[in-house]
Every structure is written in structure tokens, then in C-alpha cells.
């Protein structure tokens, strides 16, 4: 092993990073090598001087005040935010879908399966025309009217006007 390798070991030696065997090997070498002993002194001086570089520390009150500030800090709770956004978006989508359904379909839905076709058969108007007329009133009223009409089986007065 040459002095180049020992130089690396010196740095590790000063950093307390050498194993027992390596340490012994280096110490034995240092006893007989002036060049490496000189290197050891120089590295030691440098590392010792580097530690002497001053760091201006804030006073003790600073540390206590900052700890209080940090401990008092409560991050905004965001874990509920995602589900709320998801549910709101879903509700919005559903209401948009409902709003887009044509009115006539709603009326048809109300009428079907309740004698609707029998009623239509007796009327002098086509189905589309009846639906056009029904659309002049709002959905809820139309549904209500149809329900009543299907019960009585008399729808003609609605279209006489």
C-alpha cells in the first residue's frame, strides 16, 4: 500500500471511520513515514480550524418562541375536501342529466301503463299533438292531470279549447 492510499485512510481516521485493523495498519505506517505524519498534522489542522468558523446563533427566546409558533400551527384539514367535491360533482351531474330530459318523455312516462293508449284511441288528436298541448302546462301539473284523466277515462274537455 502506497502513501496515496494512506492519505485517504488519514481522512477516514480523523473522521473516526476506520475499522480496528485499518486503524492499526495506519498507525504503524505513521510511525515510519514522515510524509504521512505531516499529512496527518495538516488534515488535523484544517478540520480543527474549520470547526472554528463561527455561526451566529439567535438567542434562547427565539427558539422557545418558534417552538410555540410551530406547535400552535394547525394545518388546514383537507382530508374531507375530496369526498365533498366528489359528491357535489355527482349531484351536479345527475341534476344536469335530469334537466336535459325532454318534457314529453316525462309526460309519456307518467301516462304509460295506466290506460294511456286506451284514452288516446278515443281522442280526435294524434299522440304527438296531445303531448304538444300538454307541454303548455308544467310537468307536475301535466302529470297530475293525466292521472286524474286516466281514472275518469274522460280527456276530451282538455283539448276542446
Amino acid at each position, binding site marked *: 500500500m502506497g502513501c496515496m492510499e494512506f492519505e485517504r485512510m488519514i*481522512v477516514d481516521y480523523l473522521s473516526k471511520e476506520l475499522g480496528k485493523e485499518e486503524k492499526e495498519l495506519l498507525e504503524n505506517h505513521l510511525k515510519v513515514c514522515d510524509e504521512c505524519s505531516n499529512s496527518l498534522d495538516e488534515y488535523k489542522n484544517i478540520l480543527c480550524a*474549520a470547526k472554528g468558523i463561527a*455561526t451566529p446563533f439567535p438567542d434562547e427566546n427565539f427558539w422557545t418562541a418558534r417552538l410555540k409558533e410551530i406547535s400552535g400551527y394547525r394545518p388546514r384539514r383537507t382530508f374531507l375536501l375530496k369526498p365533498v367535491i366528489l359528491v357535489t360533482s355527482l349531484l351536479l351531474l345527475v341534476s344536469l342529466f335530469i334537466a336535459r330530459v325532454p318534457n314529453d318523455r316525462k309526460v309519456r312516462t307518467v301516462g304509460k301503463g295506466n290506460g294511456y293508449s286506451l284514452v288516446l284511441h278515443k281522442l280526435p288528436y294524434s299522440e304527438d299533438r296531445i303531448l304538444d298541448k300538454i307541454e303548455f302546462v308544467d310537468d307536475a301539473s301535466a302529470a297530475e292531470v293525466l292521472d286524474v284523466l286516466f281514472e275518469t277515462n274522460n280527456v276530451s274537455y282538455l283539448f276542446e279549447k
Partner: protein
Amino acid sequence: MAEFDEYYRMFAKKLYALAFRMVKNQQDAMDIVQESFMKAYQNWGKFRGDSAVSTWLYKITLNLSYDFLKKRGRIVQLPEKKDFEDTKIRANEKEIMKSDMIDMIKGVIETLTPKQKSIFMLKSYDELTYKEIAKIMKSRVGTIKASYFQIVQKIRKSVYDKEVNRNGMHGI
């Protein structure tokens, strides 16, 4: 959170010193250390304990220091207390040499990259092991070891070459 307070007391000053040596400004270092602990506080429950808390804290502080240096774009020089240093009475030759050596070392440290600087700080000031530094910097032990040697060797060459030159000049 008593455990958090304990870590704060143990590491706040060390992390401040590290941040100060990186950014060279007291107020900025104070802000960085506060932000580091804020982040640690927010994520205290999420910390998985894969590494030591100290490693985690060093990592946060170093990353914030890097971010700060990136934002600032350059490393501001440490405000030198030249006036004080020049007028203070130097007791003996040994003290003069040490003071000059400190100035030289500071000069070399300023030429290092932020990562080299961190390795030097963590090893020589905080006395962390190569293994701990490798964990903090997400690097290999061998790489950290080689880098540290190169840095210290660079300082040595710079300091002792300059000394030889200066002595030579005195001789003329």
C-alpha cells in the same frame, strides 16, 4: 406532541447551523429551520420511520436550503466581520495562523457546489457517519466517502499552497 418538542430541542440549533452555513444569512437560516420543523410537524403522523428522525430532519433542511439557493440564484457571501477581526488583538503567531487558515477554508468552501458543501458540513461539523450522510443525500456510501476526501484534499492543497506562497513572498 411531547416527542416532537423533544426532537425540536435536540435538533433545532444543529439544523439552524447547517442552514446558516449553506445560505450564509442568519434571517434566511432562521426561516429555513422554522419551515423545516413546520413540515416535520405537519407530516409527523405520516413519518414511516424507515430512517431515523434526525436523518429525515436533515433531509428536509437540506432540501429547503437547496430550494432557497436555487431561488436566490447565487450564494451570498457571509457578512465578514472584518472590522472586528482586524482590530482585535491577536495574542500570538499560532492564533494569527489559525485565523488566516479559517479565512482560507471559508474561501475554498465558497467554491464548492451546494451538494459538496453539504457533505463537508455534515461530516466535519455534525460528525455524521458516511452511511448517515448517504441516506440523507440519497447517495451511496462510497460516493460520499470519495467526495469528502476530494473536498478535504482540495482545502488542504489550497491552504498549504497559499501558505507556501505567502511565506515565499515574505522571503522576497
